[in-house]
């Protein structure tokens, strides 16, 4: 058969190819569209609020009570609540997390590592409501016995449970960064007679630093966005204070408590969307920092 046809008319295949590309294209565009929906929806619902209440007293008001007779729109108590809980949580989580990462990637031998690494990943998979349950029923009593605070459910309680939730995220991301440091860098340092600790300190950590910074940013982003655990752990008094032994209300807890009560389209509803938008921007910026640091870092070790 010598019919050489460079253009085999195979209409079936061309339509199949076109059709499938169409379907896949629809899914692709749909997924991106849906993700843009979040941002658009948050903005459209909070602009009217900013127009009527104004940015100034939203950001400078020190009392948040949208359902009082005359509504008070100060977001500061919520902002300080979130920052207090996440910041103290980070102070606890980062050192322990970093120590655990170094142990996991440099000191642990393979058998221990094979058990410990999945165990930590499981710790990340435990639903936050179970952390909240532990914080509300057990951790709060322990804190009460140790610090005897005037508030049983307080910011410290929230911070500790958030620290426990942040560690697995930080460890798994930074452990990968430390593993990605090429072997020859380690050997070069050993070759110069450096001890293992000096190698870790002066070669491996600096090389994996971007990955470590990214993991910390991701962990903080997750902590800022956490809702259930802080709702059950911090007592939710919306007062503007920096004392970690008082009860505070985080932005996420405020949304969980107040949103169902706001009539759709009312000023309260839009005010809560403003808080939601602020929360979205904060977590988006934190994740963006993590992404940029991570992607710049990946280029160097491609």
């Amino acid at each position: 058969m010598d019919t050489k046809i460079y253009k085999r008319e195979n209409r079936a295949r061309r339509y199949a190819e076109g059709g499938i590309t169409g379907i896949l294209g629809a899914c692709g565009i749909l997924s991106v569209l849906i993700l843009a929906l979040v941002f658009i929806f948050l903005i459209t619902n909070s602009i009217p609020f900013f127009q009527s209440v104004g940015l100034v007293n939203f950001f400078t008001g020190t009392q948040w009570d949208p359902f009082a007779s005359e509504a008070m729109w100060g977001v500061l108590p919520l902002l300080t609540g979130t920052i207090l809980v996440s910041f103290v949580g980070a102070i606890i989580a980062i050192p322990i997390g970093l120590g655990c990462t170094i142990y996991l990637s440099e000191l642990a031998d393979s058998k221990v590592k094979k058990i410990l690494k999945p165990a930590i990943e499981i710790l990340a998979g435990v639903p936050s409501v179970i952390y909240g349950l532990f914080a509300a029923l057990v951790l709060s009593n322990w804190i009460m016995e140790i610090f005897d605070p005037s508030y049983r459910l307080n910011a410290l309680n929230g911070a500790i449970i958030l620290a426990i939730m942040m560690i697995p995220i930080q460890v798994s991301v930074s452990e990968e960064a430390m593993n990605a440091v090429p072997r020859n860098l380690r050997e070069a340092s050993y070759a110069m007679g450096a001890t293992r600790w000096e190698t870790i300190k002066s070669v491996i950590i600096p090389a994996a630093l971007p990955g470590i910074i990214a993991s910390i940013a991701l962990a903080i982003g997750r902590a800022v966005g956490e809702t259930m655990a802080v709702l059950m752990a911090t007592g939710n008094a919306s007062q503007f204070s920096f004392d970690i032994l008082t009860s505070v209300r985080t932005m996420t807890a405020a949304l969980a408590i107040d949103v169902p009560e706001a009539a759709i389209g009312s000023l309260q509803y839009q005010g809560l969307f403003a808080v939601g938008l602020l929360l979205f921007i904060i977590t988006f910026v934190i994740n963006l920092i993590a992404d940029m640091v991570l992607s710049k870092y990946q280029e160097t070790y491609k």
Partner: protein
Amino acid sequence: MMLSRKNKERMFFWLFRGCAAAVVAFLTIIIMFVIVNGAGTITWDFLTQNPMPNDTGALVSGGILSPIIGTLMLMGLVLAIAIPIGVFGAVFLVEYCGSYKWSRYMWMTVNNLAGVPSIVWALLGVGVFVYYLAFGLSLISAAITLSLMILPIVMVSTKEALEAIPSSIYDASIGLGATKWQTILHHILPYSASGIITGIILSLSRAGGETAPLLLTGVALNATIPLSIFDQFQALPYYIYMMTSASDRANAYPMAYGAALVLIILMMIMNLAAATLRSRYREKYKW
């Protein structure tokens, strides 16, 4: 006195071992507390009866059947909604327009949206699905909200699985005269399948464990097993939260721990399935 280099190293190494021990201690304490307090309540009735009120009205007797079924139905709906759009969307964005300049920025935003707090998705759920599309307080509103929440996670994990395939295999298939879709169907998807499935399982377990979106989109105190997607429903995570604020605390707390244990077991099963799939996937295709 200056510690000698050897002692310094030993000191720091013990410090790191201490940190690792602390992390393991956190995990063990929390899990053991749930097991010790929860194991007692797990009986056959506990798993096969709906929550019933005791004589003063607190829903502390009976079992957690409707919350379990509610959570499984939620995960089933999320599987049907988020997975097709997420996986095929990612396939399109990676394979068909992967090489364009803007796709890198697009993936950065998708990656970013994976970090959006679940309560912000819940806000969207209330505004759009419960009210605007008038699904009302129902299973479908909660399921779509959860689907949106895990969509970025599914897309990112699918992208990573697809990109793990070396381009030489793509060239080989194209070189043999296969069309783009035939190459994807026969070579890209099969080899990345277990990576994608691992991502799906992990995001489903994330969706199943979420509570915040449920609070706003239609979870109900005494809902039985939902008969239609527009019914209100119960869910395991909400049941646990509800039990911490029930009036009869002496009976409510053990039920909360029991439900927490069941939820942890469910999550463990899914995580282990994902982990075994991922390790098998790594052996099978070592290139």
